[in-house]
C-alpha cells in the first residue's frame, strides 16, 4: 500500500490481464472483509494459517508475481509474523498460559503456551494484512476512486479532488526538507529534547501551511478553469463495471471464509 501513496497512478497489474486486476476494486475489498473482521477474535494458530493460505493462493493465482510482490509475500510478511510472534511470546505471562517449558534463563521461562499465544497473534496480523493485500496489490488509487464514484455513488467532486490531493504529498515532502534546511541555516530553535523539537516543528508549520494553502488555491483555480464540477457527472473514460464475475468472486470468497471459520470453530487453541 505504501506505493500507492507515492504514485497512485503507477499501473499495477491493469495491463497484465491477470484475473484479480480485472475484478472490480470494490469486490476485492468486500470479499475478504468478513474474514478480516472475524479474524480479530481468533485465538488459535489454524484459523489464521488457513486464511493466510487462502490469501496467498488468491494473490499468487490472480496477480502477476513481480519482484516487489514476491519480496513482500515471501520475505517481509513472514518476517513480520515471526518478529511479532517472538516478541509477543516474550511478553506473555507464562503463568497464565501454561504449557511445557522450552527455554529457561534464570527466573525467566519461555513456555509452549506463550509461544502459541505469541505466534497466534503474529499469524493473525499477517493473515489480516495478506487479505488486505488482495485488493492492495492489484488495485490503483484511481480505479478505487472510479469504482466508488460509479458503484457507491460517491460524488465525483470529492473522489477526484482527493486523487488530485495525492499529488501534494511528494511536493510537500520536498518543501518541508527545504524549510528545515533554511531554518537550520538561520540557527532556529537549537537544542535537544522534546520541547525544542516541538518548537522546531511549530516553526516549520507556518511556512509549510502558507505554501500548501497557496498551492491548493492554484490547483483549485486550474481545475475550475477546466470545467471541473460543471455537471452532476462527467464522462468516464474508464468504466469499472460490477460484472457477474465480481459477484461470483465475492460469493466464492465468502463461502470459503465460512468453510474455514466453521471447521475451526471456536478458534481457540
Amino acid at each position: 500500500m505504501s506505493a500507492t501513496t507515492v504514485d497512485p497512478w503507477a499501473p499495477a497489474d491493469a495491463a497484465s490481464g491477470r484475473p484479480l486486476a480485472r475484478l472490480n476494486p470494490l469486490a476485492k475489498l468486500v470479499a475478504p472483509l468478513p474474514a478480516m473482521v472475524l479474524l480479530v477474535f481468533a485465538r488459535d494458530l489454524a484459523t489464521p494459517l488457513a486464511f493466510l493460505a487462502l490469501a496467498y493462493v488468491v494473490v499468487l493465482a490472480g496477480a502477476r508475481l513481480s519482484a516487489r510482490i514476491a519480496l513482500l509475500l515471501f520475505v517481509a510478511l513472514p518476517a513480520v509474523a515471526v518478529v511479532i510472534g517472538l516478541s509477543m511470546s516474550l511478553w506473555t505471562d507464562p503463568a497464565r498460559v501454561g504449557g511445557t517449558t522450552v527455554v529457561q534463563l534464570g527466573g525467566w521461562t519461555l513456555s509452549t503456551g506463550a509461544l502459541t499465544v505469541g505466534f497466534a497473534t503474529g499469524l493473525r496480523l499477517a493473515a489480516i494484512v495478506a487479505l488486505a493485500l488482495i485488493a492492495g496489490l492489484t488495485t490503483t488509487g484511481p480505479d478505487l476512486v472510479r469504482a466508488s464514484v460509479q458503484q457507491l455513488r460517491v460524488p465525483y467532486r470529492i473522489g477526484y479532488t482527493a486523487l488530485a490531493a495525492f499529488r501534494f504529498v511528494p511536493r510537500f515532502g520536498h518543501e518541508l526538507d527545504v524549510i528545515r534546511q533554511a531554518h537550520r541555516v538561520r540557527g532556529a530553535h537549537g537544542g535537544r529534547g522534546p520541547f525544542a523539537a516541538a518548537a522546531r516543528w511549530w516553526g516549520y508549520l507556518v511556512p509549510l501551511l502558507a505554501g500548501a494553502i497557496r498551492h491548493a488555491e492554484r490547483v483549485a483555480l486550474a481545475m475550475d478553469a477546466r470545467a471541473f464540477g460543471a455537471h452532476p457527472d462527467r464522462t468516464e473514460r474508464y468504466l469499472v463495471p460490477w460484472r457477474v464475475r465480481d459477484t461470483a468472486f465475492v460469493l466464492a470468497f465468502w463461502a470459503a471464509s465460512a468453510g474455514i471459520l466453521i471447521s475451526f470453530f471456536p478458534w481457540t487453541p
Partner: protein
Amino acid sequence: MTSAVFGAEASTDADHPLPPLVRVRELGIRYEGADAAAPASASFEVGRGEVVLLLGPSGAGKSTLALALNGLIPHDVPAALTGSVEVVGLDTATTPVARLSTHVGMVFQDPDAQLVTGTLLDEVAFGPENLRLPLDEVLTRAEDALRRVGLWERRHENPDRLSGGGRQRLAIACALAMGSPLLVLDEPTANLDPQGIEEVYAALGDLVAAGDRSIVLVEHNLDAVVGIVDRVVVLDHGGRTVADGTVDEVLRMRAAELHDMGVWLPASTLAALRLRAAGWTLEPLPLDPAELHAALESADTSAGGGLHNSSSTTTTAGSAPSEGPSRRSCADDAEAPGAASPLIRVRGLRTRRGRREILHGVDLDVAAGAFVAIVGANGAGKTTLLQSLAGVVPVPRGQVIVDGVDVGRTDLRTLSRRIGFVFQNPEHQFIAHTVFDELAHGLRQQRLPEDEVRERAFDVLGRFGLQDKAGVHPFLLSGGQKRRLSVGTALVAGAPVLALDEPTFGQDRARADELMDLLSGLRAEGTTILVVTHDMQLVTEHAERTIVVADGRIVADAATAAVFADDDLVRAAGLRQPPLRRAFAGLTRHPSLAGVTRLADLPDAAPDERPEGEPADADAAGSAER
C-alpha cells in the same frame, strides 16, 4: 447575445474587421481587503485569431485581469468588479466559470499547480471529460492537443517525468483540449529554465502559425514573444489602458514612453534605444535579437547615424580600442588576485547527498568583492555547490574555506558571520513573529547586548526600506519586502559574502530588477556576491565572472563575456545565449560591437548630454574600424 456576436462576424465593420471574442470595458478589480483597484479601468478587445500581449508595470494588475477573462474573478476569487468583461457576448460576472471555460482556456505560471491526474493522456482528457463530451470526442481532442505540443508519444507517462518545459507544454495541451477559441497565458515561462522557455515558445509559435486560436499573453520574457504578437495592450501604474495597437504602433513608436512608465521592454529594444540616443539610426526600432542584428548590420549606411558616430569618434577615438581589452583585464582582476588571497577557497570538493556524490572534485577561488554567477542545466549541481560554500549541506573537512574558516568544521552560528545564504523562497527562512525579531535573531545568537541588537537591526531595516514594518509579521509583507528582509537576515550578522539560490525564479521583471539593484548596491559596499540563476541576461548584466557547472564539475570558469563567447560550451551545458549576446555576436560590419553582452556595455545617454571627454564606448567602437 451569442448569436448577435456571431452575426457581427459576417458583417464587415471598418473599426473591427474581426468581431471581438472578448470585450473588456473599463474593468476595475479590487480584491477583498485591498485598498485600491488594480486594474482600475482596463478596456480592450480581442478578435478571432489575434495574439494580444498584455504589458504594464508591476502592480498594474495584469495577472488579475487574466483571471477575470474566464470568470475565475469574481466567481472563485472574491473581488469587487466594476465595468465588464464579455466573452462572446456572455457577461463573465453572471456566467459560470464552467460555461466560460469552453470559450477561454487558461495556462498558469506554475506547471505543478495545474496537474491533477497520473498520465499525460488522462490530464488532457480531464477537461473534456468534465464537459461530458462523448468518449470518442474526448479521445480525439486529447490526441489532437497532445500532438500539437509534441507530447503524443509520451501520453502514457506520469507528468512528473516531464521537464518543466514539458509540463508547461502539457498545460497548453490541456487548455487546447477545452476547445476554447481563446487561450490566456499568465507568465507561462516564469518558472522555467532557458531550455524550457525555448520549448514553450516553439509550441506557442506552432499554435500561432496554425492561426485557429486567439491568445492573450502576460509575459515578461519579451525577447521571445514579440515575434508572435499581433497587438499590444499596455496598462499604466493604476491599471488603465494607455496604449492599444499593433506591435509597430505601440512597441516601436512609443518604446521610450513605455520604458519611462516602468514597462519592461525586450532587451534588444532597450539596447536599440540606448544606441539611438547615442546617435545611431535604427529604423524601425528593433524588437528582438534578430532585428537588432540586422539593423546594426545596415546601420552605418545611414548618413545621420554615421555623421553622429564620426563626430563623437573625433573626441573619443583614443579610448575606443581599450574598450574590449579593458573588460578582459577586469576579468583577469577577478581571478589573478583571487589566487593570491581568495575570500573563498575550494579544493577538491566532493559533496554528497545521502549516498550519491553530487560534486566530483571542484576547485574554486573567489576574491573579495566579486560578483559571481553559477549557472548550469537542471540537476547539474549548481545549487549543491552554492549550498556547500555556505555549509547548508554537510561538506568534508578541509575542502571549503570561507573567510579563513573551514566550513566542514564550523558550526552554522559562526558561519553565519562569514557567509549569508538566501533561499529561493524567502518565506522558508522566516522564523520569528515580527520583522524586527527576524533581524534581531541573528544578532542575539552572537550574544550581543540588547542595545546593540536594536541599533544594528534598525540600521538594517533602514537600509532595506523596512523601518515602518518592524512590528509586522514577516508573512504579511509584500513579495518585494519579503525578499529584502531575507537578504537583510542573511547579512545582519555581518557576513562579507552573500549566497543566493535562484533569487529571481518565478518573479516578475520589476521585482527581479529591484533585487538586482539591491545586490549591486551591496556589492558596491564591498559584499561578495554569489548567485545561482537561470536568467542569462541577468548573469551578463551583473556578474563579472561566470561559473558553468555540468554533471557535478566546473566546465567553465571565466569572465562572463568569455564564457558566453563560446557558443558550443553554452549549448552543451544546457544554457542559452542571452538576447543581447545573440543580437551582437558575429556582427561583421561593426566587429568591435560583437563583444557586447549587456546594456552597460552600451552608452546610456545621448552624446550631447555626456560631459566632454567621457568616452562613448559603443559608438566609438562602432566607427573605429572605419
